[in-house]
């Protein structure tokens, strides 16, 4: 089986270039590629377009890339609480494209699956529909939406093997599998890297064909945004 292992995050992101289009997995701060983001921060990059459901928080995740002014444009469904984000947006330094979450997921899925466009009901009658083709099917209105692809996709999995096969954990799966398929170069960081053949072929979430580079990450912080507990 093809071995896609690279030494670490630094090696994995070595050829990421300014003005490129990136996808970053995760929902909130859950399942984000922490190691790759750190390695990107250490490079001299600017003008990036980042496709990610959220934009991190002021001091973690994509928020750190915003602070370093590496990002020209965010494509997200919810940009949450992030003061620096807000400042850059209001000052015009940052461009933001907001997309319904399901449309975002499906556009990324379409990018990986070779579907250049599809119809979805989300956004009909709203400003999301502005300039888009609207068509009726079986009595209901739908918008035509286009695929999304990226120069580099960064995903974070729980376990992976040297062939690039990935298994995610809990709700940290979220956008990661679709982004893995939609990146021209997909870089996977995993908590545990095992030799090809050690993962159950029937339980793999992302087939290795979508992954060009894989490495075992370290020092995962896995920050929690809303720590909510019950007493019993």
């Amino acid at each position, binding site marked *: 089986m093809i071995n896609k292992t690279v030494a670490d995050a630094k090696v994995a992101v070595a050829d990421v270039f300014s003005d490129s289009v990136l996808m970053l997995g995760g929902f909130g701060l859950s399942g984000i590629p922490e190691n790759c983001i750190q390695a990107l921060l250490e490079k001299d990059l600017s003008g990036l377009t980042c496709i990610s459901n959220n934009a991190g928080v002021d001091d973690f995740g994509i928020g750190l890339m915003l602070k370093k002014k590496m990002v020209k444009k965010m494509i997200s*469904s919810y940009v949450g609480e992030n003061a620096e984000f807000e400042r850059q947006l209001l000052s015009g330094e940052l461009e933001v494209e907001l997309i319904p979450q399901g449309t975002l997921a499906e556009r990324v899925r379409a990018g990986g699956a070779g579907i250049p466009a599809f119809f979805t009901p989300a956004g009909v009658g709203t400003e999301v529909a502005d300039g888009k083709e609207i068509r009726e099917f079986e009595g209901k209105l739908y918008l035509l939406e286009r695929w999304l692809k990226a120069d580099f996709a960064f995903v974070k999995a*729980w376990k992976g093997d040297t062939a690039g096969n990935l298994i995610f954990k809990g709700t940290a799966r979220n956008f990661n599998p679709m982004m893995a398929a939609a990146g021209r170069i997909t870089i996977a960081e995993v908590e545990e890297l095992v030799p090809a053949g050690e993962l159950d072929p029937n339980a793999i979430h992302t087939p290795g064909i979508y992954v060009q580079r894989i490495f075992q990450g370290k020092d995962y912080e896995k920050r929690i945004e809303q720590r909510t507990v019950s007493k019993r």
Partner: protein
Amino acid sequence: MLNKDQIAQRIAKEVQNGQYINLGIGIPTLVANYIPDNLEVVLQSENGLLGIGPFPTEDKIDPDLINAGKQTITMAKGSVLFNSAESFAMIRGGHVHLTILGAMEVSETGDIANWKIPGKMVKGMGGAMDLVASAENIIVAMQHCSRDGKSKLLQKCSLPITGIRCVKKIVTDIAVLDILPEGGFKLIERAPGVSVEEIKEKTAGKLVVEGEIPEMKFD
């Protein structure tokens, strides 16, 4: 006038056995607390889980297990995990039976506005537009009026729309109302101690009142 928990409690009465349900952030999340134990329902979290359990005890917290509001959660017995495309395939494909969410405004034709206030920082629509465009049955939990006393049940929404002709029922702090297919808020129930007159005054859109309007009952 109902408090938030009472609104949630009233909405819980609409839940039917065997339903898959998506609960929005805020009051809708509270609905889970009032679903009777004898009903078997499954709560969906659109970030990739069917079968939301209670919040975890301190020792069970897992950063890899959160709901769409980014709160730490647990999984119910028989739950299943999936990716975001599959999650919205479920929603868009009409497999989720009931969606409960908050709103800033609802129009008498069932349009909803709940994602954007012009001039304020826009945070994004998240999954709201997918949910309202797809769900067969949408119940809105909201305050009848804004803090400065303006009705939020309008002839036409003034804020940017999240979805059109989608809301089926509204539970506010003073009333339960259905959206009529031909347009109009049909008054179904009054909050305890609230008169039909008061609801009329506080509803800017077309209110339809037929016969005696009962008071809500809480067990």
